[in-house]
């Protein structure tokens, strides 16, 4: 929670050891800053996704550096690449295995719409099988675009009514 308003920051001398906030804000703050991606690398976009994780672009600055190859431990599936019809059931199954709350970023033209693969073998957009939160254009997208998508997703999560849905979703 970086802020230039130092005068508004929490001051333990004045307020003691208690912080008052909304439960929504607290939950969303936790979720936002530890959004572990599930790298669903299916094609060349995955190379770009690796660059996002590496030191030059450093996705760790946004708290999403812990790439988990286990769906059980991840929050945000980044579908990076062409989803073929043969692979589509597996993508959906891995999405189903992720624990809620979970989000999806469709990275690149192929994952978003099928891209240049207007063919019998390619799923025409991964949103046909799983709900997508953020789409990234590009073929492949720049790493900055992936970071931008992550920030957009964090902004979206910030507005969620997490507390009321804590025990339902």
């Amino acid at each position, binding site marked *: 929670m970086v802020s230039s308003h130092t005068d508004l920051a929490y001051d333990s001398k004045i307020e003691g050891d208690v912080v008052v906030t909304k439960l929504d804000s607290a939950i969303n703050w936790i979720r936002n800053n530890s959004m572990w991606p599930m790298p669903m690398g299916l094609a060349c976009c995955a190379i770009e996704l690796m660059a996002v994780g590496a030191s030059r672009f450093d996705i760790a600055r946004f708290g999403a550096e812990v790439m988990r190859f286990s769906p059980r431990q991840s929050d945000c599936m980044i579908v990076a690449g062409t989803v073929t*019809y*043969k692979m*589509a*059931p597996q993508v*959906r*199954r891995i999405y189903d295995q992720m624990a809620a709350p979970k989000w999806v970023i469709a990275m690149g033209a192929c994952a978003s719409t*099928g891209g*240049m*693969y*207007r*063919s*019998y*073998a*390619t799923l*025409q957009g991964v949103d*046909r*099988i799983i709900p997508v939160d953020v789409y990234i254009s590009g073929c492949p997208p720049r790493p900055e675009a992936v970071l931008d998508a992550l920030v957009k997703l964090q902004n979206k999560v910030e507005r969620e009514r997490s507390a009321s849905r804590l025990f339902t979703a």
Partner: protein
Amino acid sequence: MTANADVITAVQGGFPAVTRRPSSDHPACNVPATDAIAVLRYLRDVESYDFLTDLTAIDWSAEKSPRFTVVWHLYSSTKHVWVRVAADCADDVNPSMPTTTELFPTANWHERECYDLMGVKFEGHPDLRRILMWDGYPHHPLRKEFPLAGIPTDLPDAEIAAETGIGLIAAPMAGGPFVSTPGGPMTEAEPRAKDEAWSEQSEKPTNA
């Protein structure tokens, strides 16, 4: 061992049914399907064409008979030359060809691909499953009558299909396929549909 240019003549010495095949690059010959294995064995053992670089098939379209031709490209790792062998499949509806997996182990996956996309059955193949499309896919996509956009069918996984309620759709072509025209400056080489008269917004004009 024979010089590359004379290799077809040498093959014809042992197999009188073999004919020369027009070719702009490597020596090529047509062989009857029944002689294919023997010719390939001769080329491998006697003429030292020891490497199967490619195995594919040609679909001459549904009106033609014979419809399917299987093509082998052999390479000699000692002479550094290629030779091409082609054999027509006798049956146009259920084409088949003897397998070459016992001569060239690499033919295993080539023949699976050829079976998957063209529907040529290779008799005697140890494991003739589809290799690119999934088991149970009902079509052979590289056949002439198969549209590039695909034919609507079910997803490979029945459980996921029931959950998502989707199946294969024909891909929206919108005047495509999208190809770049060769020549000209790079700025104009962006892949474009050949027929831009229609798109996803405006319907394809039908010829009355």
